[in-house]
């Protein structure tokens, strides 16, 4: 996983609530067996006409947002299906940070596993960021994870909260599985104790 320290880039405004993962990446693109290559189909049905031509009024089809690295969106971003294809598609498009008033749990979690930083900020702040993200070429934001702040195009700073462990993993690009495997002895002793208490847990499907 790539590290995330600071990011300066164009922020695209997507002022909709309840953007679900079916909208982010429709199911016909879930047939892939790879993690990459999904960026061209990000927001596919909102972004393209049925003949495949781009919809001129969709934000990610407009300059300079075609190169956006940050997304500013409404409440409950990423609800619905657990598909990790949603963060993969965002990442493949080039988006490394999503700012919204709230996120659905599974999507929020999936972001961190892929080096994307989801930032929760209050609705009033989002309204202001949304307006600034609308400024086209001047919609450049800086995200500073080390110091936990968003800097908007006017230089205004907003502090955000992030779970300490997740921050640490993002800053250092750490792989969860490697960290957990270091605790193998604990997992083994847990299993030993559980075998006594609930033997039916083990070997059921084999």
């Amino acid at each position, binding site marked *: 996983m790539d590290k995330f320290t600071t990011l300066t880039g164009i922020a695209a405004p997507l002022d*909709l*609530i*309840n953007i*679900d993962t*079916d*909208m982010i990446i*429709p*199911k*016909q693109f*879930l*047939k*892939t*067996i*790879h*993690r990459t290559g999904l960026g061209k189909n990000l927001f596919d*049905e909102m972004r393209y006409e*049925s003949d495949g031509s781009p919809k001129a009024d969709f934000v990610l089809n407009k300059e300079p947002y075609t190169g956006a690295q940050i997304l500013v969106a*409404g*409440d*409950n971003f990423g*609800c*619905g*299906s*657990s*598909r*990790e294809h949603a*963060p993969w598609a965002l990442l493949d498009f080039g988006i490394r940070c999503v700012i919204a008033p*709230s996120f*659905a*749990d*599974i999507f929020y*979690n*999936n972001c961190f*596993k*892929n080096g994307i930083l989801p930032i929760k900020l209050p609705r009033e702040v989002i309204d202001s960021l949304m307006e600034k993200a609308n400024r086209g070429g001047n919609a450049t934001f800086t995200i500073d994870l080390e110091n936990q702040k968003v800097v908007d195009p006017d230089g205004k700073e907003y502090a955000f909260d992030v*779970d*300490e*462990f997740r921050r640490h993993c993002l800053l250092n690009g750490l792989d*969860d*599985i490697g960290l*957990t*495997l270091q*605790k*193998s002895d*604990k*997992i083994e002793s*847990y*299993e030993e104790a*559980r075998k006594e*208490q*609930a*033997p*039916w*847990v*083990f*070997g*059921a*499907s*084999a």
Partner: protein
Amino acid sequence: MGNPRTLFDKIWDSHVVATQEDGTNLLYIDRHMVHEVTSPQAFEGLRNSGRKVRAPGQTLAVADHNVPTTDRSKGIENEESRIQVETLVQNTADFGVPYFPVEDVRQGVVHIVGPEQGFTLPGMTIVCGDSHTATHGAFGSLAFGIGTSEVEHVLATQTLLQKPAKNMLITVEGELAPGVTAKDITMEIIGRIGTAGGTGYVIEYAGSAIRDLSMEGRMTICNMAIEGGARAGIIAPDEKTFAYVKGRPMAPKGDAWEKAVAYWSTLPSDEGATYDHEIHIKAEDIAPVVTWGTSPEDVVAITDTVPNPKDSADPNKAAAMERALAYMGLTAGTPMTDVEIDKVFIGSCTNGRIEDLRAAAKIAEGQQVADGVHAMVVPGSGLVKMQAEEEGLDKVFKAAGFDWREPGCSMCLAMNDDKLKPGERCASTSNRNFEGRQGRDSRTHLVSPAMAAASAIKGKLADVREFI
């Protein structure tokens, strides 16, 4: 005795392997279900790092999302779908994971297969790379959906890094009115709390109306907990739960069974346990419901009309409603029962179990599907299909003009050939009415199986009470 604990607290506490300074727990996972769509990248990750599957005997794989619901023997025509299923076959073989082949009678939607096999048991932690894993909470287990990175984490370590959720209690007390089903209860709840209402919570469903439901009905309730944004839904195990589980192929037997039941009986929430949030609903206040929009929270009684965005005080919500009405091709004020449909889909992990098919067949019996409507019945698994055929339900459906098909996810998400054409409208027993869910520009109205059957016959969204 310590503090009174909830069902969720008890399951959580008994699965903590280690705790980090910041309160993140390493949680032991008892059961892991795997399907073809969210697992290829996880197995690829294992392979790349030379890791193996830690507990194949606690893992079960089945292909469901991509499989055709027509004759299986011809294989899968769509190349990408076929590759995805073949990849699962190869991965499960390489890593020694038990797998039910597509032609096996036990094949079906992963959330129907787990309970059917007794793989799903009370008091367990159960995960799957699929948000409707919440279904298994009906057994008094903590069951939740995970992403592919977490699938890889569970395959490699049989654990997950998690922070505890908050506890929410939703009670439904009293008796349901005629024609009102588990599906109506769960949709009514989402209508009330909204799709983000459960974010950060595990919802425990309780009360006499929940206890009175069959296990099938309880699964329908928990299945849609995720549609209310909750991490999981959970219902206390009781005699009904034990009776359902007993004798299933992977359930404990003999002495282990006795021991298991004794343990499971300690799980229900303690007297005096507290919740972070409580909602109390009277069963008699719930009507047969239907969705009008593109979010599962867009719920109205079937006797209502399409709502007006102008009536919403929240401008964000009003804008979302406008967008939904435009997408759905509906006008505010139209009675829901005037809305004409093109297709009907009866199936999915929400409503593809035997009881659902019985409820739909009861309405369909002796009737005819309206002209111009295509009504599909897709059993949730091969075993559900077999049972239905033993009971003669297939004949009832066929005689009424329904299309009786092979098991799978089918038009719940339209990853196989079963999909709506642009602009087509469907009464569907599935769980999501999102834009494009059942095909590009498809229009979905979520309903119960009985309501779906009634709608097929009327050719419009219909009130099931006219048929009972």
